[in-house]
Every structure is written in structure tokens, then in C-alpha cells.
């Protein structure tokens, strides 16, 4: 086992739940596999690299995904203190930190999705639990259940237009907006973190299906699905 702690008992984090590190590192003898592992084995997903295409799809595996539930005011205070970002003020809002690598997304009136770089979510969850104490809230680490795909390139919007029912033009999905919607008969979270990028959060059990759909829909643009190294 590694030196760093990989578990926290309720009394350690001041909360009412035990937590554990889903990314304990190579020392723990666990090889992490992203939801796209099967697609990788099948050769549908390749390592990141290669020339810039009209469109690029890159998986960002093993990020920390936390779902926060509770009252907006309580959670906003805690998230601002621990993450330096406030909760999105409006429905369908998506806010990023100055670096652009940590985000908080409105999911429903009492639910937010926080995505942070790999390995940060364990300590973040513990710090949030300690700060929230007895407040009425829930935090669930959903990082094992979903993964994030980044779409960029001039044809990214065209590809989405073939795949989702949502209006992905500027007026429908401006920067700083994120929606749950229909993607090729399954559900995805569709995010617009910056001018140049779209993001899809796909569920583990549908990840390979989504990849196959993207490959098929993107064939005319020479689409490849790549995976960034963790």
C-alpha cells in the first residue's frame, strides 16, 4: 500500500460516511480500467497522438467525478471554500476554475456534478464532508461509472448535430452551458466548456456504444477516438 492514506473513516473526515480513494496508485496493485477498456481491447480506441483532424475525440479517463446533492446555499459555501469555484448560478450552468481543469455543473435544482483532475476527488470529498459536517447533503463518487470524451475540431458541431436532439448551435449551447440529453438513443451529458471544445459524459455501460456511434457518424471526417494517458 502507498504511504498516502487511501481510506477515511467517518471520524476522519468529520462526516457520517467512510470514503476511499478510487485511484490509490500503482503501488496498490490495482490497474485502473476506464469505461472504454473494452473499446480499447477491440481496437476502436487508440492512444492519444497523431495529426490534427477535422475532428478529434479524446477520452479523458480516470478524472474525479463527484455528485453533490443538497441545498444550493450550503453547498455553494463549501465548494467555494474548498475548490475556489462557486456553484453555477443558473440552471444548466457550467463553471470552470481559472486553469480550466476543475468544473462544477448544474444537473438539477439540488444536484451538481464536480469534475476534477484524477486523484484529487478523494481529498476533495473528505474536505467537503469535513466542512459540511451535519448539514443535509450527499456526496457520491461516480468516477467509476462514467467517463469524459472531449470533442474538438471544425466538424465537431456537425457530428453532434447528427447525434443529439439538442440544439448545439451557439444560441442553444453557448460556452458555460451543460445539458443532459438524448444521444443516439442513450443519454449523455453534453457540455460546452470553451469555444473550441464540446464534452460528452457517457455512462460506463453505454460507453462502447457511444464510441461505435461516434466512429460511424464521424467516418466521413476521418474520425478516430483516442484516449489520453491518465
Amino acid at each position, binding site marked *: 500500500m502507498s504511504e498516502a492514506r487511501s481510506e477515511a473513516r467517518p471520524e476522519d473526515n468529520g462526516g457520517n460516511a467512510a470514503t476511499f480513494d478510487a485511484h490509490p496508485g500503482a503501488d496498490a496493485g490495482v490497474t485502473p480500467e476506464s469505461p472504454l477498456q473494452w473499446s480499447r481491447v477491440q481496437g476502436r480506441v487508440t492512444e492519444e497522438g497523431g495529426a490534427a483532424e477535422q475532428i478529434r475525440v479524446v477520452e479523458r479517463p480516470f478524472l474525479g467525478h463527484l455528485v453533490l446533492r443538497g441545498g444550493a446555499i450550503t453547498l455553494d459555501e463549501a465548494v467555494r471554500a474548498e475548490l475556489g469555484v462557486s456553484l453555477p448560478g443558473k*440552471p444548466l450552468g457550467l463553471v470552470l476554475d481559472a486553469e480550466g481543469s476543475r468544473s462544477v455543473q448544474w444537473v*438539477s*435544482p439540488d*444536484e451538481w456534478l464536480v469534475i476534477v483532475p484524477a486523484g484529487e476527488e478523494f481529498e476533495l470529498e473528505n474536505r467537503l464532508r469535513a466542512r459540511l459536517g451535519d448539514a443535509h447533503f450527499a456526496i457520491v463518487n461516480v468516477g467509476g461509472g462514467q467517463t469524459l470524451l472531449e470533442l474538438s475540431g471544425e466538424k465537431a458541431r456537425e457530428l453532434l448535430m447528427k447525434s443529439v436532439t439538442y440544439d448545439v448551435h451557439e444560441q442553444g449551447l453557448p460556452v458555460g452551458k451543460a445539458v443532459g*440529453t*438524448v444521444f443516439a438513443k442513450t443519454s449523455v451529458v453534453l457540455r460546452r466548456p470553451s469555444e473550441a471544445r464540446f464534452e460528452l459524459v457517457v455512462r460506463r455501460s453505454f460507453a462502447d456504444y457511444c464510441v461505435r456511434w461516434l466512429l460511424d457518424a464521424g467516418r466521413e471526417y476521418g474520425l478516430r477516438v483516442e484516449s489520453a494517458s491518465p
Partner: protein
Amino acid sequence: MFHIFCPYCQEYREEEEFHPSGQAHIERPAEPASVSDEAWGDYLFLRDNPRGIHHEMWVHRLGCRKFFNITRDTASYEILETYRMGEQPSITAASAEVRREQGVQTADGGWQTVGARPENSRLNEETPS
């Protein structure tokens, strides 16, 4: 295809993202143990099936996953309003009756509208019934 305004997401979405969940405003008996079998059966199974104004529960299952209510005309399919859980409808069968008596044009069957969207009302009016 409906175009439904989700009162939580605060915007119109395709019907595909939603799922209907039956009649709205059904109250669970406060003390189930003291309710007669007949009354309990009514609570579980008996539903209204009106021609005209109906209040329904829907869930935005692929969006925010919240339940909310829709006031819908079962004859014209027109969605008259959507409102959050815990709120009361502003349009009821009684108020629609008043509208009709006052000569305000209401949908009365035959065609399907795309939703109670103000900018669609012109479209609705131009559609022959």
C-alpha cells in the same frame, strides 16, 4: 412530437427526453392502515380519463430527472402549462370553461400542437382543424 418546457431546466426540450407518469395531484391516504380496501384500491388504480383538460405528471428523465406537472388538453393534445411539483395548476377544467364561454378561442380537437409556446400560437391558429 411535443416540445415541452421543463420548469426546472427552464427551457423547451424534445419529448424524447421525457416520460409520462400518469395523473397528477393524487394524494396518498395519510393513514393507509385505517383506509378501507375499496378506498385504497381507488387510490392505487382509479384514474380520471377526461376529454379535455387533464393534469399529468411527467419526468424529465434524460435531463434533470425531476418530476413535474403538465396541464394538457387530451382532445387537442395542446400543452397549456407546465409547473413544478408542489404547485397548483393555473388552468383547470373550470377555468377553461370560463374561457370558452367568454369566446376566447381554445383548441377543440383534431390536430396536435407543438406545445403551449407563445411563438407557436400563430402556427396553431394557421393550422386547419
